[in-house]
């Protein structure tokens, strides 16, 4: 007779140091990335991935943590982008980082206002309120030329480009570091917040709102805080999307499709986890590229490009469905299970006795 013990992870001390090392390695990689990757990768893949991740983090606070379903992510991003444009155009003395923060606050105030219906209605009905935000701002920013400064094509772009405290951020590297700094900082703040009492209030409302009220969770305040903080982050993500990634943007850049995209990101990545937003964003921004590459390899110009694009969309949709059936709780959960983290946290170590 022999006893075999299966250990899913190493000892605790070992785990911590491995974690630290991984952290340092990731940080080093992230900072030196512009010197490792091509400009195309930085501009067209990594920067949008980071911004979509940030938007995912923002929406996840509201939907994944506080349980308030929203289809208004695009609207709050739009508000952030147009506010940044207005600040940079009409208040050029205000440095870009401050303009971004101020725009986040504007978007947060808008989110706060559109959050009021959530104190009365929930679930699918709440979608109507956030959809209203989506359509209202698409209309507003097209209707009044003041918002796009009378530009003939109704697009907005920063009059002076991307500058922060005299540093030129217009190069691909500059855009990357601006995006990276904003995304890292806001992710850190979000991480702190979800682990604080406010985060617990949000999750309590999500899991059981009646009980939350009865044990003293300030439901109304917590819901409005979730709307405001989520929209603050989405607003800054929107400004980065418009000026850090696209360069110039219009209301179409933040249409309903964008709202769906951000919602898909958190559903695929994992509701109520910070890293889920990153995983989901990676999924939606890398999978189409992978499919594109695959099609090029397989068919290489022999088929109609438009048809190929549509087929890609169909495959993408089927993959999402398949994936959600296999793992409804998203990539974050899948990863945790793969790494064994899930088992060690929630269940005793797996022990198998075997007779020989």
């Amino acid at each position, binding site marked *: 007779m022999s006893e075999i013990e299966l250990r899913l992870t190493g000892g605790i001390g070992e785990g911590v140091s491995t974690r630290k090392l991984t952290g340092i390695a990731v940080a080093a990689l992230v900072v030196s990335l512009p010197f490792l990757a091509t400009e195309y990768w930085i501009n067209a893949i990594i920067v949008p991935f980071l911004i979509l991740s940030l938007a995912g983090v923002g929406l996840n606070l509201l939907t994944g943590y506080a349980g308030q379903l929203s289809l208004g992510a695009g609207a709050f991003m739009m508000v952030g982008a147009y506010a940044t444009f207005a600040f940079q155009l009409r208040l050029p003395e205000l440095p870009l980082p401050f303009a971004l923060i101020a725009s986040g606050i504007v978007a947060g105030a808008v989110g706060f206002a559109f959050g009021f219906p959530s104190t009365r209605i929930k679930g699918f009905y709440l979608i109507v309120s956030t959809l209203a935000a989506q359509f209202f701002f698409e209309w507003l920013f097209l209707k009044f030329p003041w918002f796009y400064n009378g530009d003939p094509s109704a697009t907005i772009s920063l009059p002076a480009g991307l500058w922060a405290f005299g540093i030129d951020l217009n190069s691909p590297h500059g855009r990357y570091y601006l995006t990276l700094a904003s995304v890292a900082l806001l992710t850190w*703040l*979000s991480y*702190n*917040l979800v682990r*604080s*009492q*406010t985060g*617990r*209030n949000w*999750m*309590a409302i*999500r*899991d*059981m709102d*009646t*009980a*939350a*009220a*009865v*044990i*003293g*969770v*300030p*439901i109304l305040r917590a819901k409005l*805080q979730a709307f405001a*903080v989520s929209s603050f982050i989405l607003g800054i993500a929107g400004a980065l999307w418009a000026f850090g990634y696209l360069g110039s943007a219009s209301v179409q850049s933040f249409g309903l499709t964008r709202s769906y995209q951000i919602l898909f990101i958190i559903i695929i990545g994992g509701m*109520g986890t910070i890293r889920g937003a990153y995983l989901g964003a990676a999924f939606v921004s890398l999978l189409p590229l992978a499919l594109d590459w695959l099609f090029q390899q397989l068919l290489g110009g022999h088929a109609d490009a438009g048809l190929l694009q549509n087929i890609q969309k169909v495959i993408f949709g089927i993959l999402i469905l398949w994936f959600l059936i296999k793992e409804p709780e998203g990539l974050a959960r899948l990863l945790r299970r793969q790494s064994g983290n899930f088992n060690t*946290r*929630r*269940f005793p170590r797996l022990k198998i006795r075997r007779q020989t």
Partner: protein
Amino acid sequence: MTTPSPPALEVRNISLAFKGVKAISDLSFEVAPREICALIGPNGAGKSSLLNILNGVYVPNSGEIIFEGEHFHRMQPLEAARRGIGRGFQNNALFSGMSVADNVIAGLSRHARATLLEEALLLPRARAETRRFRERAHEVLGLFNLEHHAETIVATLPYGVQKKVELARAIVAAPRLLLLDEPLAGMNAAEKQEIADIIATLNRELKLTIVLIEHDIGIVLKLAHHVVVLDYGRKLADGAPDGIRDNPEVIAAYLGGDKVEIAA
């Protein structure tokens, strides 16, 4: 039951109807400070509805609640929590996606003072508060021997343990009045005894006034100082356990005609 001091809680002429169906009619009773008051009665007698009125989930059609000398026509859930009315639910109403410790700490929300910005930036006040809440939660979990489960996601725990977590969450903010809806339901005899002992201890050591609903008459008559019997939303009897046990009306309506034998 004669009360030497003014009652901690007084329910006065409370009536509640759901779309015309009467759940509670003209109910009045008093709960003395530091007593355990048991509400008994068949299913649908209006017991849970009454607890929901007491902490503001339901609004009564008429009547008033007097809690520690203050009159309320309707309670708000948050107001009830702020005034120190704690609550345990019939079917566990825990926050399933959160850890045991986080569930309990959520019960401290009304004591939180740190602002959102302080929390996001990990400023000293937010950090001190987190530390203090965590210590308090562990202290309370210790009463239930649950410290080793502190970081476990609550949904993965067995039902009996979840019941204890719920009780821990209800008392973590040091309530003055604790409302418990069937705290012993769905447990085996040993677990029931353990919870009953904990409730008795809370009442004795923390001087907590407790109103509880329970179907296990044997345990109720031993645990409670005062029993209120409800049937179809009306009060059938009100008094000390000994009197209830011998009350012919109660025996006929609720105890099924057989006298319940209780060890002295």
